[in-house]
């Protein structure tokens, strides 16, 4: 079974620019998560989708971050405009219905200069 796919793996941008990350979850996994992991810290949930509906986006900075999962499969996370403190690894994870564990992608590392 193919794992969670993320792209790009690395991105360097200037502050105030925009960036988008893409995630394709494992086939059949209805639940999709986006996490932000700042160096040396644990992952922080940004948004959780169930199919194409948002379950939890309470920690998503909505003034600059947006995410969508239009067809209930792949998802895009966008940051516009980026700030220095957005430098982090953005992790996508998915989970099948009824199962506990999350499966993670390799992450997208963002550096904001």
């Amino acid at each position, binding site marked *: 079974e193919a794992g969670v796919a993320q792209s790009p793996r690395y991105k360097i941008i200037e502050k105030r620019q925009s960036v988008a990350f893409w995630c394709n979850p494992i086939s059949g996994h209805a639940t999709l*998560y986006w*996490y932000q992991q700042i160096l*040396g*810290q*644990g*992952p*922080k*949930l940004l948004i*959780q989708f169930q199919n194409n509906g948002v379950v*939890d986006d309470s920690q998503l900075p909505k003034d600059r971050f947006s995410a969508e999962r239009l067809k209930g499969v792949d998802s895009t996370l966008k940051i516009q405009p980026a700030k220095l403190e957005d430098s982090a690894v953005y*992790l996508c*994870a998915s989970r099948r219905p009824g199962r*506990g*564990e*999350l*499966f*993670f*992608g*390799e*992450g997208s590392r963002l550096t904001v200069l």
Partner: protein
Amino acid sequence: AQTVTQSQPEMSVQEAETVTLSCTYDTSESDYYLFWYKQPPSRQMILVIRQEAYKQQNATENRFSVNFQKAAKSFSLKISDSQLGDAAMYFCAYRGSDMRFGAGTRLTVKP
């Protein structure tokens, strides 16, 4: 909101020895899962072990086992016969109505 606390930022173990990583959590939910994830440097987060809260028996996966104390809300990970490849960040995680991670414990394995 549920919180997960890992009180050991760093731990070190000699190769072939045993080490225990600590985790406590706070929740008012009765149905949940607990996990330990391993994250090697610049590599993917992978599941080490999982525990369903309704199960009294502690989970084991080869050299990895947990000590789940539901009343105390404690969930420690024991790694036996430590290997160099065990060196990584270890994250304790809780999944109930949401999914939360601890801050992590960096494990160093000394040859």
